[in-house]
């Protein structure tokens, strides 16, 4: 157990904490800016994982019609369903656990981030004592030892204390989480899955918003910046996706809706092409079919690539 704790400390906590301290010193002893730059850095480092995750999830989703077909064809024969499903995944170049890998890798990073932010933001004696033995003594070119305890003021807020307004940061946390989730939501053929997605679309933002009421402001700040970066990444990969229209007037039946058809169209391509390219092309084609409104919101960069 001690070895695990030590590894956790040396591989996750100390590098992150010292990076944050360096950023704090470099960016004018301003913890708010340090957190923002730190979040950008973390998102950049984990960008390949994020991209892989998005692509894997899309690929999995696009295979759903075919999967349903397999389930119907071999109804009652679970072994065969499993065998055919695995065969389909293999042919499409998709790993069913592929989207879990990046999540597993990101999990310790995010948990570590929480720990690091809590450790650096709080200025009570216990946290400060714990901070001292995590600083790298070889960073002598910057005064990171001298920087503690940190100045937590940022735009009139104390980043170590909850939002003084009690609503601005929680609302931003909830709204940015909702937008990011909405953009990553994939239309599903399975009504149960669709319903659970819809539930999570609202549950998560409310859950996080309520939680962040009691968080030190530095954590919501991290979360909001991280969400904004996530939204930007998603925009450059898939455009606004299902974000617009925000509230569709009517929800068509899953079997006859357009995205599903789009998905079906591409299933055959999926086998021939790698998951990434087929995903992107499918999305672009679907975007054109679903109307001019969605096309208007497509990013210039994506359209340029598509035309090649």
């Amino acid at each position: 157990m001690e070895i695990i704790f030590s590894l956790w400390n040396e591989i996750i906590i100390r590098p992150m904490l010292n990076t944050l301290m360096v950023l704090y010193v470099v960016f004018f002893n301003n913890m708010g800016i340090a957190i923002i730059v730190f979040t950008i850095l973390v998102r950049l480092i984990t960008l390949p994982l994020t991209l892989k995750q998005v692509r894997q999830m899309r690929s999995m989703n696009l295979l759903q019609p075919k999967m349903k077909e397999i389930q119907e064809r071999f109804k009652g024969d679970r072994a065969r369903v499993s065998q055919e499903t695995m065969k389909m995944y293999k042919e499409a170049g998709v790993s069913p656990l592929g989207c879990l890998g990046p999540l597993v890798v990101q999990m310790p990073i995010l948990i570590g981030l929480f720990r690091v932010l809590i450790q650096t933001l709080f200025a009570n004696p216990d946290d400060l004592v714990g901070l001292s033995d995590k600083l790298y003594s070889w960073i002598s070119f910057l005064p990171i030892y001298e920087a503690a305890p940190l100045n937590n003021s940022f735009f009139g807020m104390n980043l170590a204390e909850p939002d003084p307004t009690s609503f601005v940061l929680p609302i931003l946390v909830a709204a940015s989480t909702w937008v990011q989730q909405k953009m990553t939501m994939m239309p599903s053929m399975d009504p149960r899955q669709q319903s659970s997605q819809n539930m999570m679309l609202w549950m998560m933002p409310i859950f996080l918003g309520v939680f962040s009421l009691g968080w030190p402001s530095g954590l919501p700040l991290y979360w909001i910046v991280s969400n904004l970066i996530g939204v930007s990444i998603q925009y450059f990969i898939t455009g606004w996706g299902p974000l617009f229209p925000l509230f569709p007037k009517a929800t068509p039946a899953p079997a006859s809706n357009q995205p599903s058809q789009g998905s079906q169209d591409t299933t055959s391509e999926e086998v021939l092409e790698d998951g990434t390219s087929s995903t992107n092309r499918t999305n672009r084609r679907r975007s054109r079919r679903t109307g001019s409104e969605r096309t208007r919101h497509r990013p210039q960069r994506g359209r340029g690539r598509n035309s090649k």
Partner: protein
Amino acid sequence: MVSLFLIAVVALGACQPNLGSSIQGWSPAVASGGVVYVATQQGKLKALIDDGTGVVSVKWSFPSGDDELGGVFNTPVVGEELIYVAAVDGMLYAIDKQTGAVGQNGWSATLVQDSDNQHLVSGPVVDASESTILVGSDDNNLYAINADNGAEKWRFMAGDKIWSTPVIANDTVYFGSHDRNVYALDLATGDVKWQFPTGGAVVARPLVWRDMVLIGSFDRKFYALDAEDGTELWTFDDANNWFWAGAVASNSFVFAPSMDGHVYALDRVGNLQWDYDAGSPLVANPVIVPRGLVIASREGDVSLIEITAGNLVNQYSDITPVEILAPIFTPPIPENSLSLTGIQVGGGNQQESVFVGAQDGTVHRIQAKSGLIKVWCFDTKEDAACQ
């Protein structure tokens, strides 16, 4: 899947014990007249009867019932009739030593609001006539309080929090602040006599020794300043981490404990005589006993070190692996007893002992007469003897 993952992450983050204010304080102990006063992690100040037989019992507990102080970081000060405690809840208490209540003789004063996330981390100090009590606070003020009734005499506002426990010498108050300065104020008026800028926050208790103010800073330097005008006399800058604990001095040397785990023995002009590696950060103030220097490392080792050469005499490891953060305490020892040959006897059986409070809620009385031998251990959570 992503949502569930995020919920897990958020839940894990939110369940961290330090998220939000959960300050419990440390476990400082102080002994006087056959009684040991210890602040507990449950937010109580307990008076333990220590009759010298090794059997310890609780005399009183303050506050009574379900009320609590919120925690204490520094050693309470024992006066003639009252004991003074600066607590995390932002209050300064003067408690009747006999009854364990504020009562008619005592008082309590609200200096800062716990609800504003402000606390009293600094320990109190009382002047020789026990008329003024001084304490630093999270609202950047050093408060001078009338020891008779708790009324404010004056206050001085520094540029940042004051965690450093002040020291009084020659009608002057010395202390450090997060604003990186060391201050000297007039005890009667609170006027600034001088201030000295260091490179980091100053949370250590100053030591006034041979007309010098000796204090370490978060810039990893240990300073010797002229007590009269604050001019820098010398600095020691070989340490590798912050100076948190206050220094102590014998006749010849000053001992500066650092968070790099070393205690540095310096002569009066700042030359390093020896250093001893305790193996983990030194947060607790060391104490001097007739046999040598006693230090308690953060990882729980209490060591007795020979003063002249820095050799380990004996080690008490019964507390490991629990952390020791609070200042360790020894009852006052006459100046002429601070030699290696003069072992202190008499004056009550407490005088040959050190008192150590650990973060598991236990307090230890350790005899420092012939090595380090446990006299007793008391668990303040269970109110019972511990192993």
